[in-house]
């Protein structure tokens, strides 16, 4: 047990781990974590395995593992399901939606957070108080009024001049911009950057915009990437706003939600749809795994 020697002192220490009691405790922790991993991973594995089964088998065999599993069967099941589901349009739509969400979130919330943190013009206090208070307010109260304003954008009542945003991605995009939580996240990130950067750059004759784009934005990259990961994978998960808004040009999560009421879909295809829907977020996770796991501490929001 060479590894124990390098253990940082914590609730358990190297000296504890030499005793029987400490060792037992350590391996008990280890066992609990293994069990937790089973709980977290097993449902996903079951879903994948079920998607490789034949429909008949799902209703008859009741076993977790498919009766016969080979590379050929897997390929066949994937191509069959893809043919039935035809998800390519939805995938493109979801990518478009997520990129729009990202642009709005960064431009609207990022700029807003920067101004609230560093430039602090007259009126900052009022805006900041409003942002903090609306952050914790339940979204339900806004649901119907928002729907009404999507029907007559930008008016909130039935004004014939208004544009109908239904069946476009604008409600989601604008909604991504109106995320007070993200504004505060950005504000906190910029708060952590020293003011002296701003002053030094200004003395060198840099404009306010120059300071923001050339100095602050690159320095805030970690938080921007963190937020981007959340936004990009969020679009693969949110079905509620699309459910209210979209009829044609649906996105993947909405399609999955609608599959539930569609009895013509075979069980195994259905499970494969769940697998397909999970692949893009998994790719995002795999690429940015280190960033996500690094865990930016967003625990307390400064109010």
């Amino acid at each position, binding site marked *: 047990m060479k590894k124990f020697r390098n253990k940082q002192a914590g609730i358990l220490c190297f000296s504890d781990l030499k005793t029987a009691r400490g060792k037992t405790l350590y391996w008990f922790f280890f066992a609990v974590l293994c069990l937790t991993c089973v709980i*977290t991973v097993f449902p*996903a594995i079951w879903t994948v395995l079920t998607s490789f089964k034949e429909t008949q088998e799902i209703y008859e065999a009741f076993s977790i593992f498919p009766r016969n599993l080979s590379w050929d069967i897997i390929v066949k099941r994937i191509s069959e399901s893809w043919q039935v589901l035809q998800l390519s349009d939805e995938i493109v739509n979801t990518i478009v939606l997520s990129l729009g969400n990202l642009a709005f979130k960064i431009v609207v919330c990022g700029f*807003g957070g920067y*101004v609230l943190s560093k430039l602090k013009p007259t009126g900052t206090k009022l805006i900041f108080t409003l942002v903090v208070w609306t952050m914790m307010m339940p979204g339900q109260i806004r649901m119907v009024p928002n729907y009404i304003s999507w029907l007559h954008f930008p008016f909130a009542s039935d004004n014939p001049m208004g544009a109908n945003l239904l069946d476009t991605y604008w409600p989601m995009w604008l909604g991504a911009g109106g995320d*007070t939580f993200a504004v505060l996240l950005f504000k906190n990130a910029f708060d952590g950057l020293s003011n002296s950067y701003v002053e030094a750059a200004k003395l060198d004759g840099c404009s306010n915009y120059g300071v923001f784009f050339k100095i602050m934005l690159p320095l805030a990259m970690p938080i921007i990437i963190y937020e981007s990961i959340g936004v990009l994978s969020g679009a693969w998960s949110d079905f509620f706003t699309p459910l209210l808004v979209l009829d044609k040009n649906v996105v993947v*999560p909405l399609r999955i939600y609608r599959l539930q009421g569609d009895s013509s879909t075979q069980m195994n295809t259905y499970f494969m749809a769940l697998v397909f829907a999970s692949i893009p977020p998994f790719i995002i996770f795999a690429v940015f795994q280190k960033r996500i796991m690094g865990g930016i501490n967003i625990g*307390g929001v400064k109010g």
Partner: protein
Amino acid sequence: MKTKQEIQLQKNMKRNRRKMKLRNDIDAWILMLPMVIILYLFVWRPTVLGGVWSFFRMKAYSVGEFCGFANYKIVLSHTQFLPMLWNTVQYVLWSIAIGFLPPLVIAIMVNEMVHFKSGFRVLIYLPTVIPGIAAMLMWYFMYYPDNTGLLNMLLAKLGVEPYIWLNDPKFAKLGIVIYSTWKAFPGTMLLYFAALQGVSAELYEAALIDGASSFKRFWNVTRPAIEGLLLLNIVRQIISVFQIMEAPMAMTGGGPNGASTPLSLQLYNYGFNSGGKGTGQAMALGVIIFLILIVFTIFYFWLNRKVEDRH
């Protein structure tokens, strides 16, 4: 005595500074304008209008005449209102009961590991990666009432009769809470984990020299470092679970017989599933939810200030 020149110079400087301030204000407001406009259009205005329109008779999605508390009367006198409120409270209680400790315990355990530490973190994080709707339907099938469901399959292996899971009005809410705990605890775990890593190893070493036992080290070193975060998280959890809607919507549709309908889902039904007759009631219910949660929100901010002050 100041010379005329000095006075003039001071005046110039003052004017320059004022000019700079104005320039700064204009730039800042231009950068902030998109945020203010969007927040006004989609957050602040609808919040106020939701409150105002809850007193109006709505014709589908257009505003009719003032009707006083009529919408509130309809909402509150609905025979299912109290059961739904109780459902919502039960969601919150269950989620605190089974969802509060696991992320903390797991975070502490992962933090103590020397073997396979990052592997554990990645595997445990997995549920958070699966998109919400896919995970909900996955669990819907795990809870499937016949032998095709995973849980009944496991029961069958143990020789136990299949159980109806979500079709049981007593279990439906708990089942949904189990799903949402499964989905959400890894994210919270990571948050706690980050906080635990912020605790300096020197503190533990000092405690060790003083002869503190494992439990004492946990209680006197670990606990103070994460206490504030825990308190804030519990309030945040109450606020967010009180608004639970998507999981019951996708997993049970609020059933069986309304046994898993929370207030938010009822609000959605009023607003979008009533053929346009219930939009006024939807907003009245929104105000009711708002009034209940504002208490917790105020408490949250009060708590937040306390926690910040301590650090």
